[in-house]
């Protein structure tokens, strides 16, 4: 049960009521005061003071001063009239309750409205601030624009002045020049007739069109002759040979072989995946014998041991399984060369070369080998020119290989020899 505070004292004027409430040592905070139009409550636990006011007051303007163990209220009356007493007498419990609730509700509403009003004012302030900054920035921009415009105009005027100067200067100069030149023409004409004049004079026939501020024509030809004698003769013609820096990777993108390299890699990948499905004959083969790579290795081993026929067989089987691996054809060509099946060697090298397109640094070695083998086959068939062609192609791919160089030289000699003897 709260303790009621009853030792309040009050006095009034026509428009205000001054209420003093001693607190008996308790501390009051602004939160402990609740005031509405007709109801005033002070709750400082354990003390409680409430008053249903005689007449409505203006609670927004009324103040409360807390200090010195005392609260001093200044309540402004809504209607200036003298109150009989501070509180309404004869208030029964229900009325009191009702008044209290009403007061609370009203207070709540007021609070809500206040927040709304505050929000609106805040927004307005923001808008105003924004507009103000925008105006400032506009002004700044305009100022800069104006400065630039002024510059532009100033510069344009200068340009005009300069242009007019040019024109005047030019016409003046041209008049002067003509006078000078007319004076010079006479002795020049004599000089010309004396000398053997080899140089042709173009534009002799053209009319003296005066094109704005350029000079008249026929005078200028003479002046040119005059100047020519002061100029040195044309340089003696000579040639300077240049070498260009070889382009190492990375090349300029527009020249890069990226597209071709991609193609080559793609092709290789494809080739490895293809399996020629000729399974009927191959059923009795062992698992590993169906693998073209294994067969290729077998073939290589047999070639190394000198069993060329066996190697050819291995390669044949491999080709049947996968006909797009260039290395198989390349190696088979080598075997055929050893077996002196020259036409077959040529065929195989050609097939290998076909499969080794597009030409990229990756398959350089293979291509060199293919060319060399085909070249050898041609030479052994005594088709020396074709052979030489292949050797030269090989050289182009790999210019630093000395063996190929030597062989190419030999073939050239052979060709010259046969040509001489025929």
């Amino acid at each position: 049960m709260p303790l009621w505070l009853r030792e309040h004292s009050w006095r009034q004027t026509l428009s205000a009521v001054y209420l003093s409430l001693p607190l008996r040592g308790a501390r009051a905070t602004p939160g402990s005061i609740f005031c509405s139009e007709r109801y005033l409550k002070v709750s400082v636990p354990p003390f409680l003071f409430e008053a249903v006011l005689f007449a409505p007051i203006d609670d927004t303007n009324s103040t409360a001063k807390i200090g010195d163990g005392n609260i001093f209220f200044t309540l402004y009356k809504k209607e200036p009239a003298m109150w009989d007493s501070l509180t309404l007498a004869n208030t029964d419990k229900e009325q009191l309750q009702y008044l209290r609730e009403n007061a609370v509700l009203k207070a709540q509403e007021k609070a809500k409205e206040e927040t709304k009003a505050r929000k609106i004012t805040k927004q307005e302030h923001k808008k105003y601030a924004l507009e103000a900054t925008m105006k400032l920035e506009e002004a700044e921009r305009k100022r800069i624009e104006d400065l630039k415009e002024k510059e532009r105009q100033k510069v344009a005027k200068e340009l005009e002045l300069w242009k007019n100067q040019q024109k005047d200067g030019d016409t003046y100069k041209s008049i002067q020049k003509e006078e000078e030149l007319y004076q010079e023409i006479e002795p020049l004409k004599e000089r010309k007739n004396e000398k053997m004049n080899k140089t042709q004079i173009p534009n002799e026939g053209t009319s003296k069109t005066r094109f704005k501020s350029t000079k008249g024509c026929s005078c200028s030809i003479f002046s040119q002759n005059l100047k020519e004698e002061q100029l040195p003769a044309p340089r003696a013609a000579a040639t300077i040979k240049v070498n260009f820096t070889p382009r190492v990777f990375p090349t300029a993108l527009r020249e890069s072989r990226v597209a071709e390299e991609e193609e080559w890699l793609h092709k290789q990948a494809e080739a490895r995946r293809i399996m020629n499905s000729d399974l009927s004959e191959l059923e009795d083969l062992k698992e590993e014998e169906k693998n073209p790579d294994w067969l290729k290795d077998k073939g290589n081993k047999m070639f190394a041991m000198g069993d060329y026929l066996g190697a050819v067989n291995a390669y044949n089987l491999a080709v049947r399984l996968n006909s797009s691996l260039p290395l198989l054809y390349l190696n088979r060509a080598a075997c055929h060369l050893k077996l002196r099946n020259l036409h077959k060697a040529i065929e195989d090298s050609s097939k290998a070369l076909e499969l080794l397109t597009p030409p990229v640094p990756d398959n350089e070695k293979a291509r060199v080998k293919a060319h060399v083998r085909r070249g050898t086959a041609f030479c052994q068939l005594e088709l020396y020119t074709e052979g030489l062609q292949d050797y030269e192609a090989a050289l182009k791919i790999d210019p630093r290989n000395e063996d190929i160089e030597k062989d190419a030289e030999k073939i050239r000699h052979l060709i010259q020899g046969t040509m001489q003897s025929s």
Partner: protein
Amino acid sequence: MSAAGLERPQVVSHVQQALSYTVFDCKWVPRSARLLCLGSAARGTGLVQLYELHGARLELLREIEKPKPIKCGTFGATSLQQRYLATGDFDGNLNIWNLEAPEIPVYSVKGHKEIINSIDGVGGLGIGEGAPEIVTGSRDGTVKVWDPRQNDSPVANMEPVQGESKRDCWTVAFGNAYNQEERVVCAGYDNGDIKLFDLKTMSLRWETNIKNGVCSVEFDRKDINMNKLVATSLEGKFHVFDMRTQHPTKGFASVSEKAQKSTIWQVRHLPQNRDIFMTSGGSGSLHLWKYEYPAQRSKKDSEGSEMGVAGSLSLLQNVTLSTQPISCLDWSPDKKGLCVCGAFDQTVRVLIVTKLNKI
């Protein structure tokens, strides 16, 4: 933008002219307010248009059509009175035209087998001494020097060694023409080679490789003892070489800058101040640079031979004018700060760069 920012040189776009053809080169006519645009019309013929600056617009004075598209032109080798234009076209022909009577060229030769990418002239316009000469660089890998008094054959020919695969020559420039005998040609190729040919001794004086194709080379002045050479390349890089001191093995000292993310198409030095130059880029932007010399331009290396010291670069201003590459740029030799540039969006723009006096 602070006030200090406005003290830098500003690039003011004065006139913009839309053209109905692709412009490859634009040049001021010396001693006048007129400019030339060279290019290729849609139907595959060459066009030369002569404009005059009238207030805020360009007035077309003359239009000349030629059978082959024209790639480049120069006034460098003619006298001030004649002002003949030397052009290189897509077919490898070098022609010199008198613009008042352009039906028949004053000089014509089929100099190259493929398009002439770049042309430069020296000895004319009252600048420098010695015979007027024209150099052309072509896609066929050769660089040829011509004298307008000698028909049909070049006075110097820089060609690849027999059997060597050729590289396109993209740009050429004359330099070091300070007396009657001395002359040097610098050529840039598409594989990044820069070669310096000495015409007096007819030999290769220096070469280097800057890894990316060289789009444009220019000496800061053609008619002085060679001082600086700027070479621009693909991928936004350019190099400034100090040409006063050549080291026997290391060549010339250089400083390089990576400015724009795209190709730097052209570099042009301001005729009135040889330390200021403008680079134009593939993103349609122009950058104005200033070169500052180091405290000492040369120093001795460990073996006692002289080597050059490169200076530093500062960016004075940059501006983006177009979305397409600005492929050609020319400063007016008569009015400081006036320049013309042509871009692949078929417009030619006359620009004025202000406050160059205060640099």
